């Protein structure tokens, strides 16, 4: 079972200005359990794309299928879709509104019409999953630190028990420690729950270590869709559209260019880079 986008095009314009084509004939298959990095610079259409996946935006043309059903069919429940395809927006802490964290996390499951016990159980589980300390549960969400707020907001979506979790720039505005914590959290969630995860980002370093597949967006179209190593092989092309390769990959390229050795430039994580450098050193 999977999410399928079939030739999706999305245009907007309020009738006065020129028509903007935010998505241009995008076709993607997102199989269950995959960890996907969706990369593109600002305005490339990546946020627009993910808002199509849970039916917040309706494509101008093309169809989206969830488990084989067209999500814009009249008898398809959007509410059920949104509980199955959980979307966490950028700066999720800006959407916290309840008097305490626990009640806020209850908001999602409550909207699904579950009974009170189930709602509270799910909220509790979700808060545990994101690793918030117990003494935060009944604090006002506005008293939490930046990283904690973001965890609370992610828990708000997790409490609906989605099968697909989409995170729109979950690391924006966090310090390096907060960033690593959130990314580790996402990776562990995926491992424990076997969820499909789509991580939207403009930073290759964020996604390189974790994902199975990278989809690169540029000007509303998909320009690369492959395994990380294959995508990062296109260093020049990526740089031309305002993106970069992970820093370690960049270093390997620089080493090769300086003629130090015939380094393997398909390295994408620090661990791999260490191995490769050691191998080369031993050889030399």
């Amino acid at each position: 079972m999977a999410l399928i986008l079939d030739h999706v095009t999305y245009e907007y314009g309020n009738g006065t200005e020129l028509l903007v084509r935010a998505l241009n004939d995008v076709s993607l298959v997102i199989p269950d359990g995959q960890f996907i990095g969706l990369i593109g610079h600002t305005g490339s259409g990546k946020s627009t794309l993910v808002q199509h996946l849970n039916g917040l935006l309706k494509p101008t043309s093309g169809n989206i299928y969830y488990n084989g059903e067209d999500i814009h069919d009249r008898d398809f429940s959007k509410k059920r879709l949104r509980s199955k395809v959980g979307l966490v927006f950028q700066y999720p802490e800006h959407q916290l509104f309840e008097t305490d964290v626990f009640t806020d996390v209850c908001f999602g499951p409550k909207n699904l019409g579950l009974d009170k016990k189930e709602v509270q159980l799910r909220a509790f589980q979700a808060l545990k999953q994101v690793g918030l300390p117990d003494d935060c549960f009944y604090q006002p969400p506005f008293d939490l630190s930046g990283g904690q707020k973001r965890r609370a907001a992610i828990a708000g979506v997790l409490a609906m028990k989605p099968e697909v979790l989409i995170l729109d720039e979950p690391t924006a505005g966090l310090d390096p420690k907060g960033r690593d914590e959130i990314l580790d959290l996402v990776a562990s969630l995926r491992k424990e729950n076997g969820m499909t995860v789509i991580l939207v980002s403009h930073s290759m370093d964020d996604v390189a270590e974790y994902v199975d597949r990278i989809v690169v967006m540029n000007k509303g179209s998909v320009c690369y869709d492959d395994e990380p190593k294959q995508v990062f092989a296109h260093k020049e092309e990526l740089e031309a559209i305002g993106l970069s390769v992970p820093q370690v990959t960049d270093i390997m390229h620089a080493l090769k260019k300086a003629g130090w050795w015939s380094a393997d430039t398909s390295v994408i994580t620090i661990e791999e880079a260490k191995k490769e450098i050691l191998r080369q050193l031993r050889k030399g």
Partner: protein
Amino acid sequence: MIRDITLGQYYQTDSIVHRLDPRVKIVATLVFICSLFVVEQAAGYVAAVLFLAAVIRASHVPFRFMMRGMRAILFLLLITFFFNLFLTPGEAVFSLWKLTVTEEGITLAVKMAVRLSLLIIGSSVMTLTTTPNNLTDGLEKLLRPLQRFRVPVHEVAMMMSIALRFIPILLEETDKIMKAQMARGASFDEGNLIQKAKSMVPLLVPLFISAFRRANDLAMAMEARCYRGGEGRTKMKPLHYEKRDYVTYLVLGVYLAACIVVGRVVPWGSIL
């Protein structure tokens, strides 16, 4: 979604009307509105329509944009029209059930409807051809004399421009928060009035918090640049009148005089 709403509906193009000093446009709008209420006779309205048509022509703004403002007040227009039509005492023309239509009623209803439509179109010419910033600048300068009576003119103008500046930002924010809560299964258009009002809480709380945060940041940024109110503050682009502005004032004077003469002296019958 909500982003489609246009407020402070400036239409960007280059025309003589766009280039006029905002003060001239504010005064012109006031004069135009006054002229509508000064005239009593049909000829006066013909003059007003011709004047407005000429200004719209000169402004290069498509006419359908003017009509957008009309759509918003269509309901109000209809209510005034029917109230005037049925509730004005006078010589009965015909009666429908308990409602009587009088000759005076017809005249008054048509007159008010024409006045209101011209008023709305006339003021939308101003907002369509002047950026909000220019508008507040013009207002500030026009109201400057009130400062002698301790009216905080600069502060009021500053508040107005901040408010105008924040409308699109907060609209975008509303859109974002709405989508985020919808992603958590919220719906904003289901149920009765009370349920609808309740469903606004998850939208309004984050919106207010973000508005306060932005206000705080802005205040800090202004302080950091030593903002201390209007005292001794100069403008980067000070307003000053050009020749075309004086000419416009002249045209306005002539128009108003013509309206008074034509609209009050020449009777209905003579043009029909």
